[in-house]
């Protein structure tokens, strides 16, 4: 069955707010890995306080993905280092997501 995989890469300090907001918008789960990288807001590396990034993945249906994306666009895009992208994925237990 098809679902969406939404990947968000952003500042580690946003973690709590992001988790709360994602769940509030209907996601049933998320997975986070620590990451570092570079983009329009310069190099972001861990190693000192929360200077690094997190990479958040959410498997969900298209509507939830859309809700999360537009929430992020409105609230965080302007002021935070953040990118996100969307892919189609096939899952085994679609009722979970």
């Amino acid at each position, binding site marked *: 069955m098809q679902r969406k995989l939404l990947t968000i890469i952003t500042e580690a300090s946003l973690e709590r*707010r992001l988790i709360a907001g994602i769940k509030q918008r209907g996601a049933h789960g998320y997975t986070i890995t620590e990451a570092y990288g570079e983009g329009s807001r*310069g190099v972001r*590396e861990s*190693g*000192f*306080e*929360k200077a690094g990034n997190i990479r958040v993945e959410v498997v969900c249906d298209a509507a939830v993905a859309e809700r999360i994306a537009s929430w992020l666009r409105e609230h965080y895009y302007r*002021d935070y280092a953040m990118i996100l992208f969307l892919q189609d994925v096939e899952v085994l237990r679609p009722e979970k997501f």
Partner: protein
Amino acid sequence: MSLDPVILFFLLGLGAGALKADLRLPSAVYELLSVLLLLSIGMKGGMAMSGVPAGELVVQLAAVAVMGLVTGVVAYGLLRLSRGLARSDAASIAAHYGSVSVGTYAVAVAFLAHVGVSFEEYVAAFVVVLEVPAILLGIVLARGARPEGGWRALAGEVFLGKSVVLLLGGLLIGLIAGPVGLEGISPLFFDAFKGILALFLLEMGLVAATQLGAIRRHGVFVLAFALVMPLVGAIIGAGFAFVMGLSLGGALLLTTLGASASYIAAPAAMRMAVPEANPGLSLTASLAVTFPFNVLVGIPLYFRILQAVWPDAGG
């Protein structure tokens, strides 16, 4: 007056970073070191507090809180002189400079040990009190009374941040357990303190070096501010130390606290409460300019001057 070896570690880090050496301490090591530093500074303060009359202590702590606000306001005033700087950026930077740097404080403590000057140990309690007020001030300056996410969420960010929790927790532990109770943990928390500080400064040198490139980007005004403000903050700190009747050693510490800028508590809080402020600006100023300046030049300089003018100083 020879160089304290912990400074050499900072220089090593700075040099290795500037040369892009393949040397990085993992973030877990940084975390461990900073937790140890915060706890032991807190505990030292707590142990010393039990000897001080409560009334006197409260007055001094209140004075110190005022000092944080004064430093923040003065910093904001200076920053508003620039047309190019957004109000939110000025407010955020002011919060950093009104608040304090625990690493800089630790270097000043090591400096006093190095030159053999004693101080009121309870000054460590000032560090805790100085952290917070200027951060709150900065938020008000930037957004009036409306921080991003509301005051409730914000209080969490400020009072439940790592540095406040560990300093305050250490303080309470030191106060409750006292010197005798803490003897058992002294090898790790007190005897190893200076070695841990040395490693911490190595890491801070590496971090500061990676920020050096950003100075150019942020323009000459911020650079100038980051060099001038420590002197202004030092004067404010020395003034408060004089009024509060501290000894030469205590005065150096309060002067250094005034001169120092936060790079743990303030960045975390401002990022959440005033997201429109550019975090690169304030961090570069405090970490890549003011921190090295205080560590390498400021502390010995403040000491010389205080030594020359302080009532109880021999010189």
